[in-house]
């Protein structure tokens, strides 16, 4: 039980935004990965995870996000995160995740940053 993570996708030309709502635990992480791998299979190399509706995560969920980061590095793509709670941002910092995935405050900054050719 406990309501499971809701994941919604906004497919755009060349990139996609994945929105989450709920707890990113084991199953929540798997849900996100399923969606992310599908988007990658569709040829997208730029993904933004907007965690606006996620107030809690656990380290099992985050380790599944690391798998997605690994995949993105492999395909030479870009993965960004936005709208993290202060604690989730701090946790990503503790783990050093921010060296391999961009963390942005909001969606506008994220899209500007991820779509720039740099």
């Amino acid at each position: 039980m406990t309501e499971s993570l809701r994941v919604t996708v906004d497919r755009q030309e060349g990139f996609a935004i994945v929105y989450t709502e709920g707890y990113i635990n084991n199953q929540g992480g798997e849900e996100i990965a399923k969606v992310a791998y599908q988007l990658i299979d569709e040829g997208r190399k730029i993904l933004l995870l907007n965690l606006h509706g996620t107030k809690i995560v656990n380290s099992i969920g985050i380790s599944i996000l690391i798998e997605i980061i690994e995949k993105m590095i492999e395909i030479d793509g870009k993965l960004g995160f936005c709208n993290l709670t202060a604690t989730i941002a701090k946790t990503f910092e503790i783990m050093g995740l921010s060296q391999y995935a961009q963390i942005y405050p909001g969606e506008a900054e994220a899209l500007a940053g991820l779509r720039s050719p740099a």
Partner: protein
Amino acid sequence: MTGNAVLREVTLTLPMLPDMEVAASKTATAMAEYMQMTPDRIDEVRMAVIEACINAFEHSHAPDRKVYMTFEVLGGGEPELLRISVRDTGVGFEPGEREKPRIASKLKAENKRGWGLEIIQGLMDSVEIDSSTDGTTVVMSKRR
């Protein structure tokens, strides 16, 4: 001077079953709100509690499948410190032998796990682990 009288003590016993860590995190929230900790710091406590619980769920192999927690508010008059203890009666481990996880190596590794204690230490002010073949107790504290 920091007083260290126990002003409030609440105990919680949880079954090692999916999602029960969330109940622990709510009890932690209640105690932290009682102390008027700031919302961001409350959130950090919540996350640390979740990690400590799932460690016990996953790794302890405790025969009674239970986690025993205490939440103590300490201070001299005013609440100053929240101390949370998470105990299981499982197989234990050697905390000293744990290698600090590194993201660069985890990215290449098959097993990307191993972050829980690192996160707990990063989010709480102090963490002590007492582990033996009788079980594990993690005591973690955060100032108001």
